[in-house]
């Protein structure tokens, strides 16, 4: 399932996939795969992404 909330939060902060990838120490393709729903990140990576984007885990990764 696509993670549109992550994409929206990233775009909201005017960050490219490359910018976010550098900030959390992964490749751009990994951020792309998470947004497309092709890869389930570990909790550590989720936390890193949340810290950079100023969001909570629930806001970005909890599926209703």
């Amino acid at each position, binding site marked *: 399932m696509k993670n549109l909330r992550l994409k929206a939060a990233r775009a909201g902060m005017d960050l490219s996939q490359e910018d976010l990838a550098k900030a959390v*120490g*992964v*490749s751009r393709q*990994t951020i792309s795969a998470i947004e497309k729903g092709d890869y389930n*990140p*570990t909790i*550590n*990576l989720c936390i890193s992404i949340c810290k950079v984007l100023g969001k909570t885990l629930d806001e970005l990764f909890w599926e209703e």
Partner: protein
Amino acid sequence: MNFRSLGFIIGIIVGIILVIVLLKAINRDGKMKTKYDERQLRVRGDAYKFGFFAAVLANALLLVLSTTEYGVGIFGYTVFFIPIFVGIIVQISYCIFKDGYVGLNTNMPRFMISMAFISAFNFFIAIMAMVRGGFIEDGVLQAPFLNLLCGILFIVLAAEIGIKMIMDQKGE
């Protein structure tokens, strides 16, 4: 120990030294270890698995071939290296197309130059052996055939990276 065995040992030692030097050169931080993120490490794990099974399968097929009236024919002792090349190509190809090949600290221009250099170097050795003799002896392929395989391997690798880059550009 004969001249050929000594040549192989020296070749392997030179190869290891070359790999160490190249790894330090192609990584932006000057470290030998290439860094990968968690998704890439997972992809690489899968790639090693597929590469291993491909090598086992290639080995089994060659074993069957060796029991037929054709035998290993022109390949001679170089036949031992074919499953290794098959395994490496499968491993690398899977990594490239799943974005697990290029590390986080890889300097791409230097990486591509290194591959071109290694490929050209191996082709040079193979072509020199073809011209001077020593590529085939007594109807059996010799060590320079492995250099030809290496040259082809790095061209395939570069082509796959190029295709993947085009695919990524179209996908963005």
